[in-house]
């Protein structure tokens, strides 16, 4: 199993551009999450999904959108990039039961918005 994979690894955007961060897991996990990590701030939850077709907002959803058309994929969309979205983005997945199980993290996408 590859686990959780994320693409791209790095990206530089100009203000106002859009992009999609890809996340795929091959563990048949129902639960998937997007976090952003800023220096000294820990991880903040952006969006999460409890299964295909079901998504919900986390702590910091503004400026982002998600979709979950399949169990495997959970892309994160930035429509109008802003400097405040410069961060490291992590996708994670969690097993069938969720809540208290182990979250498995991808390697991250480093985004710089100029």
């Amino acid at each position, binding site marked *: 199993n590859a686990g959780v994979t994320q693409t791209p690894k790095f990206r530089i955007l100009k203000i106002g551009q859009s992009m999609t961060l890809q996340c795929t897991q091959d563990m048949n996990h129902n639960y998937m*999450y997007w976090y952003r990590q800023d220096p*000294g*701030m820990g991880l903040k939850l952006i969006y999460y999904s409890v299964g295909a077709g079901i998504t919900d907002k986390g702590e910091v959803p503004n400026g982002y959108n998600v979709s979950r058309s399949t169990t495997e994929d959970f892309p994160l969309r930035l429509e109008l990039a802003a400097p405040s979205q410069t961060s490291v983005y*992590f996708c*994670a997945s969690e097993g069938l039961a969720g*809540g*208290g199980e182990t979250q498995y993290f991808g390697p991250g996408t480093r985004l710089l918005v100029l």
Partner: protein
Amino acid sequence: AQSVTQLDSQVPVFEEAPVELRCNYSSSVSVYLFWYVQYPNQGLQLLLKYLSGSTLVESINGFEAEFNKSQTSFHLRKPSVHISDTAEYFCAVLGAGSYQLTFGKGTKLSVIP
């Protein structure tokens, strides 16, 4: 809602010395508690977790943490650290019935040879 406080942002320690990384939480409901570790330029990996039962939980690489409900703490300890333990450690809490992990701000452990 839950919150997590990691009191130390950086902890330097000599190799083979003991270390304690502190974590306190607040919650109005019962909680599950986790410690994750992040090595440089990598994602987070679960180190250990407390769900129920024995309040002392251990990892495979010598770390342990004890859930103390009265002090709302879940401190991480290791009796003798190695250079390879250099990483950032995150404490996290999950409220019962919730799907959202709340992370602390992290503690950077630097092991000095």
